């Protein structure tokens, strides 16, 4: 099936691209690797009047390391290149693992980091062919006040299935956004919203330019649970960062992905583990906080009860792996 008709713009510099996005009609979409947007266009989930390709913008490319060890990763960097980048693999093998967890090598050879961070939310009832959706009827995301996932929900509860955010959030990464009006930088944790339709804070004409990872010496672990390893969207992901060594840690960051509309931080679990240590007692206390931290869950792609169990299992496995990491 051909894509819906649209204008295709290919700016050569960031300034040109931002001007093009400012001047383009409402609903214009920026294009990274295309593996998400092209698919959604083919399913007629989106039909933007224009697409602005970011592929050739030099400002969005490459990884730069400052003297203090801060990494600036261009949002247009391909995931394939990041998986193999020695500056990432040497210091943050768990971050490289999170990048490698995205889809297959075929997809990563096209897909960009920015595209994965902006990955549209997914729902069983919307990510279907147009014929399927028409038979079921529209929903919040496709233009009416109805939700098939949670009856009566006033907000879209589609899932954020991107694999890279939890590890980057745990590392305290910031994102730099740019539009023709200017630039702003904010923590990646604040980039996401609990709304499946406007799931990021990106405004009209605004794009993600770069991701900055501060120097971190803490331990970091990433895990992904999925149907087919090395291929599918996740049932759940987790990133756990901790200082200290062995079972001792005073500061932790725990972030779950793919279970909710925005990546979810488990603050209560972090506090239990910091207070009681990463041994079995601390872990049991931390696991007991997960259900409340997750709150209401959807049955999208896997049952809510399974998701609650999965979140506890991911936490248990990740913390066990973390405390056994060589110092």
């Amino acid at each position, binding site marked *: *099936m*051909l*894509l*819906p*008709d*649209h*204008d*295709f713009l*290919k700016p050569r510099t960031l300034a040109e691209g931002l001007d093009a996005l400012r001047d383009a009609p409402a609903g214009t979409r920026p*294009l990274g*690797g*295309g*593996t998400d947007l*092209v*698919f959604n266009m*083919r*399913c007629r989930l989106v039909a933007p009047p224009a*697409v602005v*390709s970011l*592929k050739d913008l030099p400002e969005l490319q490459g990884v730069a390391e400052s003297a203090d060890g801060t990494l600036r990763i261009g949002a247009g960097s391909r995931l*394939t290149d990041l998986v193999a980048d020695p500056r990432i693999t040497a210091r943050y093998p768990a971050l490289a693992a999170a990048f*490698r967890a995205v*889809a*297959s*090598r*075929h*997809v990563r*050879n*096209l897909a960009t980091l920015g595209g994965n961070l902006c990955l549209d939310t997914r729902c069983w009832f919307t990510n279907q062919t147009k014929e399927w959706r028409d038979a079921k009827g529209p929903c919040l995301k496709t233009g009416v006040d109805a939700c098939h996932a949670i009856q009566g929900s006033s907000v879209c509860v589609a899932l954020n299935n991107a694999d890279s955010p939890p590890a980057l959030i745990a590392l305290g990464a910031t994102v730099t956004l740019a539009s023709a009006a200017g630039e702003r930088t904010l923590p990646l944790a604040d980039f996401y919203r609990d709304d499946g339709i406007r799931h990021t804070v990106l405004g009209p004409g605004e794009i993600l330019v770069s991701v900055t990872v501060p120097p971190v010496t803490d331990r970091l672990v990433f895990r992904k649970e999925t149907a*087919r*390893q*090395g*291929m599918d969207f996740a049932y759940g992901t987790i990133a756990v960062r901790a200082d200290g060594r062995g079972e001792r840690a005073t500061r932790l960051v725990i972030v779950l992905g793919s279970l909710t509309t925005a990546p979810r931080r488990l603050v209560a679990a972090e506090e239990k583990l910091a207070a009681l240590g990463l041994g079995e007692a601390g872990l049991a206390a931390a696991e007991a906080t997960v259900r409340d931290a997750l709150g209401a869950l959807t049955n999208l792609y896997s049952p809510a009860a399974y998701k609650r169990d999965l979140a506890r299992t991911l936490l248990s496995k990740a913390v066990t792996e973390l405390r056994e990491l060589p110092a």
Partner: protein
Amino acid sequence: MKKAIITLTVNGDAREVAVSARHTLLDVLRGKLGFMGTKEGCTTGSCGVCTVLNARGEAVLSCLTPALEWDGQAITTIEGLEKNGALAPIQQAFIDYHAVQCGFCTPGVILSAQAVLNATPVPTEDDINDGLAGVICRCTGHIKVKEAVRAVGRANAGDTPVVAKP
């Protein structure tokens, strides 16, 4: 949008072709240039049968990328692996190891395997698994495919030439 004329170098031959924003690379390769070895499967990025190689010899999904992004780029399709009538080692290995059943996914699998060998001439099991995970055979499985890739890897390591399995 009006059509634009782009230049695609497919298997070494530069071709000019008129495409619109509605076309993916797959649409152009099959529908306009006649490279029918590139198959159209799921068109959702799940099956991998539309795999082609980019200029760096990496496997990419031609169904998920707009044709206009490829202006001036070089692409290798399954038709381009054979050189002067001689099959590429990976193609011969697929024959030797019976790594083909119905054949529909085979172009995508062979190009994915070639991409693995381009990146790592002597691939590890992890390289093979990672490189072939994105392309799916629905007839049987990947055991014989992996045997074929391993055989080329062994030949590249200088162990044994690529010949029929004993």
